[in-house]
């Protein structure tokens, strides 16, 4: 049953014309911004953060992709057909999450590998994935994108409309660092940085001055995982309780 659900979701994702373009967009935009940041890295900058900075842009496309798999069906009414065929709604959501996560891992890996290659070429001292912290930053960046995809699936299930869901996801990601940057009190500043999904999640990219980071790399990714889990739970609850 679960396998058929996943297969069905995969077929839908595969045959929608936008998917390939969006996956390409994730890779292209991530590499582009990463190259810009690598080329302009100031002295004493974090090479991994520069090389993988494109993730901040690529995640926006990941959000479109993930939101579309859920909201797209609501937009066209396809969701009613889907639920008729597979009445266990949580299975459908799980299948969607799985397919989106798989696509994001694929695109994210390509984007991160290409960014690393660009970083190696453009950074003053190069960038080697063989180094432990760099490898952690690279793996973490792929996982970061995957968690953003799951967060977006959850939010889309919650609010249904594609434009609104993207607005909520990007607002959550981009607004918190801007607001945080204005907080002068160091305690509150650190607290907000630990809670903000983007800042905390991207802590996984830090490779220098680790003791000065607001949160340790994997803990930060854990915070983002909690946000994604929360969104999926809320989405699952609404999906079960509401009319399609």
């Amino acid at each position, binding site marked *: 049953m679960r396998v058929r659900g996943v297969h069905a979701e995969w077929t839908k994702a595969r045959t929608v014309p936008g998917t390939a373009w969006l996956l390409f967009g994730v890779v292209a935009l991530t590499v582009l911004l990463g190259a*810009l940041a690598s080329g302009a890295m100031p002295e004493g*900058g974090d090479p991994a953060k520069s090389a993988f900075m494109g993730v901040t842009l690529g995640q926006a496309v990941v959000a479109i992709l993930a*939101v579309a798999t859920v909201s797209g069906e609501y*937009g066209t009414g396809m969701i009613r057909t889907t639920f008729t065929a597979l009445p266990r709604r949580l299975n459908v959501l799980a299948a969607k999450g799985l397919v989106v996560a798989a696509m994001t891992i694929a695109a994210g890996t390509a984007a991160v590998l290409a960014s690393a290659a660009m970083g190696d070429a453009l950074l003053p001292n190069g960038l080697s994935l063989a180094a432990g912290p760099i490898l952690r930053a690279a793996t973490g960046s792929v996982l970061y994108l995957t968690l953003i995809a799951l967060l977006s699936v959850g939010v889309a299930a919650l609010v249904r409309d594609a*434009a*609104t869901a993207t607005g909520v996801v990007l607002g959550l990601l981009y*607004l918190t660092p801007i*607001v945080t940057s204005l907080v002068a009190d160091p305690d509150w500043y650190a607290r907000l940085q630990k809670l903000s999904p983007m800042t905390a999640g991207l802590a996984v990219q830090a490779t220098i001055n680790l003791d000065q980071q607001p949160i340790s790399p994997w803990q930060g990714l854990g915070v983002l995982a909690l946000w994604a889990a929360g969104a999926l739970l809320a989405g699952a609850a609404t999906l079960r309780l509401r009319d399609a």
Partner: protein
Amino acid sequence: MKHVIHAEWTKFRTVRGWVVGMVVAIPLTVLIGLLGPAGDSFHCAGPNGQKCAGQSPPTGPDGTPVFDSFYLVHRTLTGDGAITARVAPLTGAEPWAKAGLIVKQSTRAGSAYAAVMTTGGHGVRMQYDYTEDIAGPVNARWLRLSRKGNTLTGAVSADRGHWTTVGTAQLDLGSRVEAGMFVSSPQHVERTQSFGDITEDGYPTSATTTFDEVTTDGEWRTGWHGTAVGGASEVVTTGMTEQDGRFRITGHGDITPIVAAGLGRNVENALVGVFAGLIAVLVVATLFATSEHRRGLIRTSFAANPRRGQLLAAKAIVIGGVSFVVGVVSAALSIPLVAELEVAKGFFLFPTSTGTEIRVIVGTGLLFAVAAVLAVAAGSLLRRGAGTVTAMTVGLVLPYLLAVASVLPAGPADLLTSVTPAAGFAIQQTLREYPQVSASYTPADGYFPLSQAGGFAVLCAYAVLATVLATFALRRRDA
């Protein structure tokens, strides 16, 4: 055209979600704006609960917060008069270390003044009332500052024979003024930027130079005596020695307007919530355009009015008008409410005139309106809600985030905030850049690379381009 606008207005006001979205943008803006100061608490060690020293700097004659500390060797001048002196070059001093002649209303920090000076690295300058600066020749040892009525004239000479006027200032300093020689030397600052953090390392400096051949014209009283204007420094020794008419003066401090936003809060800080409100407005504006395509209503609309360009124009007018109102109300509520909380929390607020505040409030309205028009045009072009909202957010918010949260170094940050639609946020800038003050003028400090009008023009250009493309696409494409 009128009935098309009316039809679009009816569409807008009868969809509850859109009206709610627009209305919600207002409290969203205000609440996010309040979040910044709400999270802060200053712990001031003042004995009677007064504000911390340095937290409310002196203000100049026009209300600008200023630094005003230097070492002054002065006498009291009544009425018209002049002072002439030869100044030894400031070698090895900070570029903006200053040594020269000054006429000042009083020795109170922040009082009006005019001065002609040599600097460590910027040649001879005539400066007055903190904000005004006139460049003079690079090398000149003789300085003269004269007062006739309310006109103060600074002049320089290489040989004491041939004098060049650097500049004049019209200042009403009253009949009795303090006048003489001064030396100042600002904090040495080294900025290092790493991701997410800018660290400023600095230390106080002092400069020493010698004045001789000092002559005065007019009615001068008292003997030459030294005063550390703005209070004596606790870390750097300043002072003056006199021998045979040669004055050796060591000074510390600076006489400039304050530009670093870190010292206080400005209007832009109160408007940080604009980003949240703007996203809500953008979502509604996008839906206003894309929903018709998704639901097929667009075919009915085109059947009712086959002139497709008119439909887009009507949509732009309706959503632009609504967004303008939302922007104006959001800003008009945010600025006073956030300011009140900031004052309660003990922040120092950069003073802004009512005129500037109105400009920023109207500017925020225009920002919302043009951004919404851009979203409608992009929505008609892309026909995809999620794609349009993402493009809008990435174009308007992400560049600002990358620049302001100082993830990017200054160069690319300036580039991003000049060529993307985010340049439009320049319309909210209230801080002024002073060429005579070396500071970091980056978006993170509240300074946009483009002027208010220039930045807004970039956003408008995007809106116009998108509207033209959308009109073209609507005409050519099947609905």
